[in-house]
């Protein structure tokens, strides 16, 4: 007798004592077909909890017998509750469990059927059907005979129950009369597991867009062979996330394509909402075909080969009904990725049940909206495991990475894209739809676009939140700082939809200079990068002004498209506030727009906007009040104080030689005060007209269709040169490449000369924009400020040996952490912006950086 075991679940053995349950299991263990840990036996659990397997309460005094019986019941109760807990745990872990007990009464069996259902695993019964005489004779020979009376009683119950067992709802029931004849077959691996092997290309919702699908497969490298099958030379396979039909032009053709490729082992497909509806229709059920399913029926009607139709329908029905709810991709047997149509719960992964199938088809939803569409809930927020979940169903303008899940339904049928996610490469390949097949009907992509600028939902932020960044994973923002940044956004910043990026903070050198008389020196920055394995670096002059972000539009129409108002752009500070007053901003924007348009910039790069990260000078543009009331004020006080004291001590020194020490000290202090006064004026000049403003961009962050984080800093510097050539409001930034000892020396000399002249210093960056060391993100930039400049940061006397010694103990740990997180948030936000995601998703990153900045760090770093 051959028994097919499910991959996981509960195998209930049923039969009276002595029917051979344990013998059968022992035999399976001995032949290596079953692990002993897969068997849970009530006898064993009785021993485990009470040290005894059996208590014979017959042939005793009545009171003794009753007491023994009670004890046996208590032991059994404890043993069964422990057993059940163990079985439940094994079900959760998707394991198979043989339950070795008599299970003679329906209630005993029902418990396990429910348990299996609750945990979405199979439940199967093996009924040991043995004659009464055999049972009785075996009982005589066992060590603890159960007694004739009990065996007889059990057999009566068994006989009565036997005919009902089949109908109790097992996935299979086997009646075994001879245990010797039993052979089991079991799956070595989970049927929904798929080994990645040479790679799998996961494809989003196709919806009958056959041509786009073929185009995508060809782009992925699949070639049509002699049997008209699309196969990959490297042995890759493709996997559809379902909804290959409905809405679009060629559902039938697409279904037949998959039917063949799946059969021929070249492709896979998971179940989906449209597929299940079509399957039920093919089964002959009474279903209302709508939301594009009616087009599938039409295609069947118009199908040419009418004689094949019935057979075709049968095959397709089987194919669709057999599609698993989801697949789990494995690397050497280890699960790493889940493919599902609409969503999945973590506890469903690797299991199969009707409930799971339904969830995977529709995702999490609650009720219907005014137009009868399901209100989709965000199932991804509950996803906690490390498995990456790839899903479709809910069209997004660009592949959306959220909470360790990736949506790759880019609505090809709505005129969007058909996306493939290549695994294990984790690369996206997409083809553009030839047209919008929705033909003016409800189009989710257009609906999303309309809603793009809707105000963000405050509920997402005001309890604290975390942002999933591509570069650094989850960045957590605590409630305290989230609230502070919402406060700031509500009062001070420019509109939420316009502040699309906040530049990250930057750390100074990780360690202070080993040289005497220097707090910072390029050496430490270069060493930091060399230790991280970075050989090529770019050193850029650090301008001293105020940080400014320029979000510039091609024309006011582009402004309306991207920020919802007709504007040529916006220029804002690193805290998200408007940089200039409105009139000056307008003048600057108009001037830049004319120059760029004059150079045909927007057409040349086919972009509707430019996002620039820049330093805007002079310093006094933003900081005049601060300079006057703080820096100048300090200088005046210091010079007044120190010159008076120097004078007084100087006059008295001839009468008291001890004063010479103080005189020298005050002479130096006065010099320091003059340096201080000289330094801050270096960054200031009078502004009479906008021509005197200088804008030094150092990153071209994005154009409307592309971000530029993949470009090296040398490219960014060259682009900046281009800007400087187009308009003299833009100034070029000098830079040098460090790639060997000689260039390092050159940069250090350059830094020394420049800072000796009072310039702020340089910034050293790895040549690539996003740099990692051993897979970990490293500081994207390190500033090295000059000796003179630091007078206005650390105080005019900071170079006095005693002071410097203490300052060299500074710690940049927190600053560096912030710098990394803010960098990751910045990159993420701009990616989202360029991908056309909602402003809520962009704002999440912006708010994150603003929140990090409300967490105080030593402002001198």
């Amino acid at each position, binding site marked *: 007798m051959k028994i097919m075991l499910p991959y996981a679940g509960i195998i209930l053995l049923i039969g009276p004592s002595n029917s051979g349950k344990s013998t059968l299991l022992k035999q399976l263990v001995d032949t290596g077909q079953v692990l002993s840990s897969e068997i849970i036996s009530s006898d064993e659990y009785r021993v485990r909890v009470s040290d005894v397997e059996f208590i014979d309460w017959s042939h005793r005094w009545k009171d003794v017998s009753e007491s023994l019986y009670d004890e046996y019941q208590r032991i059994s109760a404890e043993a069964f509750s422990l057993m059940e807990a163990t079985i439940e745990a094994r079900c959760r872990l998707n394991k198979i469990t043989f339950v070795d007990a008599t299970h003679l009464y329906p209630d005993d069996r029902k418990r396990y059927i429910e348990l299996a259902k609750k945990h979405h695993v199979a439940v199967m019964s093996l009924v040991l059907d043995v004659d009464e005489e055999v049972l009785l004779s075996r009982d005589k020979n066992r060590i603890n005979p159960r007694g004739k009376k009990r065996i007889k009683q059990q057999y009566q119950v068994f006989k009565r129950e036997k005919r009902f067992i089949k109908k109790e709802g097992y996935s299979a029931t086997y009646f075994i009369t001879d245990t010797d004849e039993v052979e089991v077959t079991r799956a070595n691996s989970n049927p929904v597991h798929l080994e990645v092997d040479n790679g799998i290309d996961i494809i989003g919702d196709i919806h009958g867009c056959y041509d786009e699908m073929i185009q995508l497969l060809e782009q992925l490298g699949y070639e049509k062979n002699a049997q008209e099958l699309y196969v990959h030379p490297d042995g890759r396979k493709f996997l559809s996330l379902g909804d290959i039909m409905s809405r679009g032009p060629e559902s039938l053709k697409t279904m037949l394509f998959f039917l063949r490729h799946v059969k021929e082992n070249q492709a896979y497909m998971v179940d989906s909402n449209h597929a299940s509806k079509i399957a039920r229709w093919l089964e002959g059920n009474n279903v209302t075909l709508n939301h594009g399913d009616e087009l599938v029926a039409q295609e069947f009607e118009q199908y040419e080969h009418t004689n094949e139709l019935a057979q075709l329908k049968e095959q397709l029905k089987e194919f669709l009904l057999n599609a698993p709810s989801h697949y789990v991709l494995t690397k050497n047997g280890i699960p790493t990725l889940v493919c599902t149509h609409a969503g999945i719960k973590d506890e469903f992964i690797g299991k199969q049940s009707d409930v799971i199938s339904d969830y995977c088809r529709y995702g999490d939803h609650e009720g219907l909206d005014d137009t009868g569409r399901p209100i989709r809930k965000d199932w991804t927020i509950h996803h906690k495991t490390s498995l990456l979940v790839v899903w479709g169903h809910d069209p997004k303008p660009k592949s959306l990475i959220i909470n360790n899940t990736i949506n790759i339904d880019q609505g090809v049928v709505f005129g969007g894209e058909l996306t493939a996610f290549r695994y294990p490469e984790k690369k996206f390949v997409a083809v553009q739809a030839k047209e919008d097949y929705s033909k003016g009907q409800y189009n989710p992509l257009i609906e999303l676009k309309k809603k793009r600028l809707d*105000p*963000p*939902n*405050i*509920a997402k932020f*005001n309890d604290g939140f975390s942002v999933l960044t591509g570069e650094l994973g989850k960045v957590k923002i605590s409630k305290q700082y989230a*609230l*502070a940044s*919402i*406060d700031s*956004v*509500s*009062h001070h910043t420019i*509109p*939420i939809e316009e502040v699309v990026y906040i530049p990250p903070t930057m750390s100074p050198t990780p360690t202070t200079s080993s040289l005497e008389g220097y707090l910072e020196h390029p050496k430490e920055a270069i060493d930091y990068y060399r230790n991280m394995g970075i050989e090529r670096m770019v050193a850029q002059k650090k301008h001293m*002004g105020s940080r400014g972000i320029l979000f510039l539009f091609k024309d006011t129409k582009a402004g309306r498209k991207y920020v*919802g*108002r007709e504007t040529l752009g916006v220029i804002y500070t690193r805290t998200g506030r408007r940089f200039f007053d409105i009139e000056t901003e307008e003048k600057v924007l108009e001037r830049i727009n004319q120059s760029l348009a004059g150079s045909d910039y927007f057409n040349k790069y086919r972009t509707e906007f430019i996002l620039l990260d820049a330093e805007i000078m002079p310093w*006094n543009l933003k*900081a005049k009040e*601060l300079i*006057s009331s*703080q*820096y*100048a*004020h*300090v200088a*005046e*006080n*210091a*010079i*007044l*104080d*120190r010159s*008076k*004291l120097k004078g*007084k*001590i100087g*006059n*008295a020194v001839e009468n*008291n030689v001890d*004063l010479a020490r*103080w005189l020298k*000290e005050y002479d130096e202090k006065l010099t320091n005060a003059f340096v201080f006064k000289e330094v801050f*004026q270096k960054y*200031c*000049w*009078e502004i009479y007209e906008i021509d005197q403003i200088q804008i030094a961009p150092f990153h071209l962050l994005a154009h409307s269709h592309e971000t530029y984080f993949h470009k090296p800093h040398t490219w960014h510097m060259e682009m900046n040169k281009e800007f400087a050539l187009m308009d003299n409001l833009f100034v070029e930034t000098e830079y040098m490449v460090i790639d060997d000892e000689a260039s390092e020396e050159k940069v250090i000399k350059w830094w020394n000369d420049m800072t000796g002249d009072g310039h*702020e210093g340089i910034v050293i960056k790895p040549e690539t924009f996003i740099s990692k060391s051993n897979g970990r993100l490293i500081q994207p930039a390190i500033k090295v400020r000059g000796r003179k400049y630091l007078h206005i*940061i*650390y*105080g*005019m006397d*900071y170079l006095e040996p005693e*002071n410097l010694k*203490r*300052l060299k103990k500074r710690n940049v740990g927190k600053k560096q952490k912030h710098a990394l997180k803010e960098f990751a948030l910045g990159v993420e936000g701009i990616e989202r912006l360029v991908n056309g995601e909602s402003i809520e998703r962009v704002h999440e990153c912006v708010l994150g950086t603003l929140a990090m900045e409300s967490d105080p760090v*030593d*402002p*001198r770093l």
Partner: protein
Amino acid sequence: MFILRWQVLNAMQLTIRGTGPDVNMLSYLMAKNPNNLYERNVSGHLVRLFFGKFSEEEVEVTIFVTPDSIELSRNNSQTYEITSYINDREFAVSSIFCTLIRTALGTALNGKPKEEYEAWVNHRFPLQFSFGPVASHLSDHELLDLFQPLGYEVLITYGEVDYSMDLKSKSIARYITIKGMTTLQMGLRQLFVLIPVLDNYKHYYIDEKEVEKIERYGEGWLDQHPQRELILQQALRFEELYKMVHVKTERHSEIVAEPTMRLNDLRYEMIIRKINQLTHRERIVDLGSGEGRLSEKLGFVEGVKEILAVEPSESQSLKALKRLEKVERNENFVMPKQIMGSLFYYDERLKNKDIMILCEVIEHIDEFRLPKIMETILNDYRPRVLLITTPNREYNEVYKMDEEYRHPDHRFEWTREEFSRWCQMQNRHQEYELTFDGIGEEHELYGKPTQMALFTRKEV
């Protein structure tokens, strides 16, 4: 670069110069040997004293502090947040100076020299005290008013402002010299009271000891000083402390009725009156509830079951909480629920309420941002009634105002016509009935100072 708040880190110096017979006694009164340099480390700062001149007829002694600048700025950056509400991040050294040099000048201040010189304690010398730099918000005139009544001649000199660009015309770093016949103890005591008065902010928390100190040092001159009020107020920054020495003196008994205050009350009154006329007034939202003045009044409206006070600012919300807690136990008061929220976000908690109020809120928002907010309110939140108040710009004529707005943060102020037109535009789906009203004293030409619009949802 970062906006880094900088603090004045300079020491102050005080030079005492005396001329005339027996002036050398000053060194005994101070208990300082004129031949030695005095140098003490007080919490990392160096307090130093030397005699620049010393003869029978001429003595010049300078006491100064060389502060530990690193320590000062480090402490400041750490305590940045905590002290910001009493100390505008600026570090005025004049009061710290007095604290630091008090020990060095203790003998002179207390008038306790060695017994044989005690007679000189009350001896008046022709003395000159020079000190600076003074970083004070007081004008030169106010400085003169502090020292001249004490019989001093006052001379003020300034720091240099020779900058490469036009930063300022005059330095506020000043060096002050006062001259007069006085005893050393009196002169110093006066300085120890008055130097902290010059100080914009004090660096330490002021407690009762300060009161005692002022009473001691001020003995014999402060009560007669015409600027006594100002001196006490400045020296004892906190009101509670100020009251302790102030009980005897009467304050201005007459409170000048400010028109804006009255208008506020009228506004609230009008809003409450309007609400009382509405059938549905169970659930009310006060958008931009600020310090909770209106929310408090809403809590007493009959029939109200829920009030949401929506405000993004934490500091305002804390003030509101204090205000509301005071009345929380009143009978018939519905405690408003404070919500951290903002008009620039979507907030599902605000949906489908009976009444939403924007009381003097819209004029604080850039005009171009308002349509989006109104869209969210009228189409997503969909209250039965939306009530908006905003200044009537025409009325500014009555206040004799020119082009300026009533509040520096106002982004606009509208005429009645502008407001009405704007409201019509926001109601483009025609789902609301609009009525207008005014609040405050009516002018026949310019109307009332505040205008109000009531959006009432048309019954379907």
